[in-house]
Structure formats: structure tokens, C-alpha cells
């Protein structure tokens, strides 16, 4: 009965669809199952008593890793290698990757007598992994190249644009002579379009910088409460023109933050002007700010305007996407304001999101910023 069971276990180990081997504390093979023999291309007689180094393990792997040192360590310290992936070598010299589980064989005195290892071939997986990694690296570097190109281009584009904007302004304002009505109107279009193009270029430059990881924050300490209040004053002219009511609920505990003031101003201004843009006449736009439980400020800019339909919600923070509506059609935005704002906030360690219950239900934009510690 016992003999029979031993035969059964032996069969199990011999025929298992995994590499199973044992080596002594010198790294010499003391057991090598059938699967291992077929896989590595050594018969039992050829491998037993031989060191794994030079047979199934090359002294160094393809990347130059010292595998001899690794084996020397495994036989002393098998517990550190319970799960270990390393390169192995077939008899033909072909390199393969094996995922090993190693277990020390401990005698009664607690001394390591050898290591028992089970391995599975993960070469294909490893290759796929490497290909993905390469593809990812290529994509990252292509994206960087794109960003650098954009940054340089943006600079070159501005130079002629400055002349277009400057001269059209000069002529439009009749600084160099009187114009008739049509001339004045049309030059006004040239000037406005030039300015629009300039802001587009500036946004592209910012975005490409963020993506290239080159956007640096100029951190200064300032009172966020004041910035929010000033932004409201700044936007009020636009609101009055659109017959939109402005509401403000800025709590006193919204205090000093350490952030890039210009960028935060840009974000707040962008949110407010978007809210006004997408709110019909007679509507309401508001700003709310409070300190939340954590060391964080929560700012929300809300409106009761046209809202965002669920099917369009993915577009809000996407580059160059504008939700087409009768309102946006009248207005030429860059389509970069929101994605840029979100990136600015995230650079500060904050979050930005929005909520809308649907068409004509208004929109709430939120962002958080960490309060100055201490």
C-alpha cells in the first residue's frame, strides 16, 4: 500500500506539466523530472550531480545580471526567493524565462540541505511584456517630441501674429487715419480673430508643456478668498451684458493657499466664463467655496444653464471637444480651457470634476486644492 502510494506520488512529480527539480546547497542537481528533461534537453544521467550553472542557468543573463551570484544566494537563503522569475538556458543555448517557486529543504537542525523548485515557462509572456514596454516607451517619446515641436511652433507662430494683432488694432482704432464703417467693422474681425488665434496658441503651448512634464508651478502664498472675490468682480461686466445674476458664497475659513496664482486665476476665470457662456439670459451663475474636513478647500462654480447630457459628459475634459449647442455655436472657444484647467488643478495635487443632471439642468464644476499645511 505504502509502496503503491509512493509510486503514485513519484508518477505525479515525474509527469507533472511543470519543471520540478531539486538541488543541493552547492547548486548541484539532485532531482530533475521528466518534464524538465524534455524541456531543457538533458537526460537524467546527463544532469544529475552537475551544477545548474553552466547547464540550465547561464552565469549571466542576457541583460548582464549575475545569475551565479543569485544561485549562490538561493541555496543559502531560499526564503528570499520563494517566488522568483529569472532567465534560464536550454541545452541548445536558447534563453528562456521561468517563473520559479523555491522552497528550502530544511533538516532537523534547521539547516538548509537543498532547494526544491517548481518552474513554469513564461518566455512568451515575458516577450509580450517587453514588447508592450517598448511600445509604451515609443509612444511616450513620440508624445514628448510632439510637445517639443508644439512648444517651438507656438513661439514661431506668435511673432507674425503679434504684427497682425498690433497693426489691425492700430488701424481699427483710427490711429493712422479715418475709416468708413465697413472698414472699421472688418478690421475689427481681423483683430478679434488674431486675438482668438493667439489664445489658442497659448493654450496649446500650456497643454504641450503639461504633457511634456515641463510645466512648472510658481508657488506663492495668497488668499484664495480674495482671488475668488476678485474673479467675480472681473467677470461681472460679462454677466451684466448677458443679464445673468451672480451669486457668491465664499466662507471665511477659505484662507491662504500655496499655489501658482496665475494658473488658479486662469482656472477660476475659465470656469466662470464658461458658466456664463452656457447659461441663457436671465440665468444664474454662482461660486461657492469652503474648507472641507481634510486640509482642503472645495470650490464650486455652478450655473442653471444648459447643462451637460450624459452622452456628452466625456467631452467636457477632452481636448478640442466642444459640446455643440445653439449657445456654443455662437461662441468661438478654444476647446482647450477645461482640459487645461483640470491639468492645472491636478498639478497642484487637487481634483476637478463636474456634475450635471442633464440638459437644461445646469452644471456644477468642482475643484479642490490643498490648504497650506500648518
Amino acid at each position, binding site marked *: 500500500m505504502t509502496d503503491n502510494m509512493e509510486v503514485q506520488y513519484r508518477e505525479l512529480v515525474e509527469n507533472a506539466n511543470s519543471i520540478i527539480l531539486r538541488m543541493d546547497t552547492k547548486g548541484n542537481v539532485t532531482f530533475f523530472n521528466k518534464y524538465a528533461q524534455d524541456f531543457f534537453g538533458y537526460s537524467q544521467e546527463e544532469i544529475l550531480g552537475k551544477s545548474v550553472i553552466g547547464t540550465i542557468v547561464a552565469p549571466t543573463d542576457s541583460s548582464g545580471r549575475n545569475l551565479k551570484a543569485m544561485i549562490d544566494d538561493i541555496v543559502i537563503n531560499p526564503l528570499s526567493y520563494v517566488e522568483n522569475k529569472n532567465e534560464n538556458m536550454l541545452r541548445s543555448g536558447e534563453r528562456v524565462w521561468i517563473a520559479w517557486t523555491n522552497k528550502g529543504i530544511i533538516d532537523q537542525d534547521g539547516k538548509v540541505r537543498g532547494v526544491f523548485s517548481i518552474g513554469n515557462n513564461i518566455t512568451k509572456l515575458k516577450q509580450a511584456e517587453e514588447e508592450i514596454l517598448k511600445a509604451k516607451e515609443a509612444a511616450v517619446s513620440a508624445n514628448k517630441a510632439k510637445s517639443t515641436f508644439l512648444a517651438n511652433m507656438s*513661439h514661431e507662430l506668435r511673432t507674425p501674429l503679434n504684427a497682425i*494683432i*498690433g497693426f489691425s*488694432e492700430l488701424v481699427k482704432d483710427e490711429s493712422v487715419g479715418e475709416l468708413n464703417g465697413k472698414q472699421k467693422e472688418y478690421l475689427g474681425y481681423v483683430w478679434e480673430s488674431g486675438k482668438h488665434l493667439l489664445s489658442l496658441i497659448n493654450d496649446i503651448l500650456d497643454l504641450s508643456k503639461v504633457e511634456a512634464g515641463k510645466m512648472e508651478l510658481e508657488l506663492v502664498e495668497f488668499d484664495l478668498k480674495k482671488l475668488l472675490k476678485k474673479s467675480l468682480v472681473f467677470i461681472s461686466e460679462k454677466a451684466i451684458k448677458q443679464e445673468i445674476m451672480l451669486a457668491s458664497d465664499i466662507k471665511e475659513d477659505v484662507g491662504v493657499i500655496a499655489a501658482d496664482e496665475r494658473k488658479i486665476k486662469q482656472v477660476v476665470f475659465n470656469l466662470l466664463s464658461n458658466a456664463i457662456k452656457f447659461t441663457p439670459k436671465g440665468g444664474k451663475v454662482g461660486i461657492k467655496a469652503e474648507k472641507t474636513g481634510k486640509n482642503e478647500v472645495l470650490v464650486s462654480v455652478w450655473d442653471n444653464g444648459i447643462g451637460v447630457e450624459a452622452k456628452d459628459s466625456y467631452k467636457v475634459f477632452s481636448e478640442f471637444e466642444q459640446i455643440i449647442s445653439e449657445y456654443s455655436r455662437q461662441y468661438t472657444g478654444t476647446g482647450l480651457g477645461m482640459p487645461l484647467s483640470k491639468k492645472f488643478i491636478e498639478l497642484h495635487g487637487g481634483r476637478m470634476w463636474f456634475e450635471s443632471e442633464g440638459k437644461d439642468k445646469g452644471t456644477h464644476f468642482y475643484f479642490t486644492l490643498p490648504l497650506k499645511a500648518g
Partner: protein
Amino acid sequence: MAKILIVDDDLRILKLYSEFLSNEGFEVLTAGEAGIGFELAASESPDLILLDVMMPGIDGTQLHERLSKDPNTSGIRTVFLTSLVKEEEVAVSAGNIGGLDYISKSTPKEEFVKRINEILSGK
């Protein structure tokens, strides 16, 4: 009225800013390259020099250095003109004009004139 010297290799920029400033009553001198700029600065003693950063040959920062070393011109206020529009760009720009006065070439006319007046009145 104050006398302003503009140094820029771009003829359009020279014309544009001459118009901006002469309409406001300033006396405007222009130079299309650094050498002439330096001569005019020394001979005309303007109240302010507007200096383009990127110019072929001697660039804006080099001219600035030359002006500030020469006792005849070292007292003249210099403001750089740049097509960069943002502070952080200016701070890291090739010409390295960080910390010095500058005006973006994208500044609209009114703001441009306002900045010039502020600079002249020592703000």
C-alpha cells in the same frame, strides 16, 4: 515728453511700436540692430530703451550688458521685448532675462502704453 529708443531686428515691430508710442506723444527712435542701438543710446540719451531679446548678431541681452557697463549709457532704463507671453517662459528663456523688466509683444496697445508710462514714472 520722454524719449524712447526701440531696438528690434523686425521692421514691423519697430513700426508698430513707433506708432503706438508716437501717438501718445513720445519721441521715438528706432534701431534695426544692436550696433546702431548702442550708438543711438550713447548719442541721444533716451529715457527708456525697449530691447528685443532675440536678434541676429549681438542679441538683446548682450546689448543690455554693453549698455550697463558703459558709463554713458548705464543710467538708461532698459525693458526687454519678448514674444514669450508668460512669466515662467521668460524666466527660463534662452536669453535669460529672468528678473529684468520685460513687456510681451502680445500686449494690447492700451496696456502696452500703460506699462510704458508706469515704467517711466518709476513703478
